[in-house]
């Protein structure tokens, strides 16, 4: 199934209005607005946010990627535990992964100690969590399709055949 063109456009730039999307796709503006509402309602679109380079934004928080191993449960596999973890405010993202560990949990805190405290007090102590491995984020090169360090725009000749 091909991706909805409206979703594709919003993924690249969420600030485009239904009118702008309509102008690019030939759809009616009202139809675009209705479709976007449908996508938001169904959870296909979870939300919108600006994609930030924390270094440049002067962010004062610290981010860590935590590999978590879980004991799968009889009814529901990893879902119950994963949701329990995901609901913590500090958890920015939470994914089920194939390979050597089960979940990757991306956590944000005020400081290294803050994150470490969350892991040791709230995460590792959960029933069903068998191990965690914490990796601290140092620098962003690319985030969600956007390069953090722009290649300078290539300049073309202003007129060419």
């Amino acid at each position: 199934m091909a991706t909805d063109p409206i979703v594709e456009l919003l993924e690249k730039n969420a600030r485009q209005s239904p009118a702008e999307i309509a102008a690019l796709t030939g759809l009616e503006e009202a139809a675009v607005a209705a479709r976007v509402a449908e996508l938001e309602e169904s959870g296909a679109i979870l939300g919108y946010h600006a994609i930030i380079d924390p270094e440049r934004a002067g962010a004062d928080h610290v981010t860590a990627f935590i590999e978590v191993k879980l004991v799968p449960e009889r009814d529901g596999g990893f879902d119950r535990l994963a949701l329990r973890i995901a609901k913590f405010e500090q958890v920015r993202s939470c994914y089920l992964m194939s390979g050597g560990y089960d979940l990757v949990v991306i956590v944000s805190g005020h400081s290294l100690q803050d994150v470490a405290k969350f892991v040791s007090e709230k995460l590792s102590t959960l029933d069903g969590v068998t191990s965690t491995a914490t990796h601290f984020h140092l620098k962003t090169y690319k985030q969600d399709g956007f390069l953090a360090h722009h290649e300078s725009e290539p300049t073309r000749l202003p007129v060419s055949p």
Partner: protein
Amino acid sequence: MPVQIADSVKSIPRSGIRDFFEIVLGRDDVISLGVGEPDYATPWHIREAAIFSLEKGMTSYTSNLGLESLRKAISGYVESQFRTTYDPKSEVLVSVGVSEALDLACRALLNPGDEVLYHEPCYVSYNPSIALAGGVPVSVPTYARDAFALKIENLEAAVTPKTKVLMLNFPTNPTGAIEPPEELEKIAAFAIKHDLTVITDEIYCELIYENPQDHVSIASLPGMRERTILLHGFSKAFAMTGFRLGYACAPEMIIEAMMKIHQYAMLCAPITSQVAALEALEGGNDCVVEMRKSYGHRRRLIVDGFNQAGLPCHTPGGAFYAFPDIRPTGLSSKEFAMGLLEAEDVACVPGDAFGETGEGFLRCCYATDINLIREALERIGRYVTSLEGAPELQGSAAV
């Protein structure tokens, strides 16, 4: 005695684009819709393969026809894209851009006095390439009322016993026209009837917006392969204009003839570009699909914008140019283009740079940042309104 320039060169008129270019260069902060190339840098995986080849020290000549691996990949690509088979060993020539392949084709085929039919408005190099090879360029008009498709009756009106070659370019620079399949069949029959060789420049064929997979090359039609030189390249679909890499596919004896010229004039296409081209073909066409989608959005925006501004503009089936009709303003193409540049700092190429039938039109490239397109359309709207006797929004009847 001062140096004497060759008559054949003296007789080539100054390029209309070149003059316009000089004027635009002299101004600051112009929004230019006068470009003829993608607004993307070549996709990274292609650039990276080229860089890696240099690191490995691949800097020598290749065989005249081009790297065998590249010719094999081209043969496979042409098979799937154009549904015609060419032997990579003897029926594919890798050239320095389609520009060189076109020049080779003309020089390989034309004897002095041989006539070549080509449709206008067209790319700026066709007429001079034919003339420089000693041929006689014979232009065939196309019209906005036909969405600039080439009509058989216009070809029949122009053919003579001296006609040897028919040159085609679909999708067309500057009109964006695509040739409907039923017209293409008539043209094939025409070429066979008059025993013509066809040179078909299909450089924009991946950039077709409705059903791109249905593109038909004249080379694939019955009776045509033996008399067609298929030209294609990497500049537009893969955003590799600066790499200067193209190719010709044709029966062995034509390639052999083209090779004879190519081996002395060029020796071979640059090896770095050939390696890049190989990666382009092997790396899959996701990048092409993405770029095409984005051009498609911008096509809609710009065509609607021109129509709303009172300049009738057909929806081009391919390439990345809009070709609005500025005749409702009563100005010539040059007057409009210059006036627009001076009043609003927007550059579009006057249509007469592409032949007589381009007079009254403007070529506007939508391979440009979307916000710049929006801004340019606003300024164009303002300019059109400011002209005396501003056109009614209904637009005039298109010829």
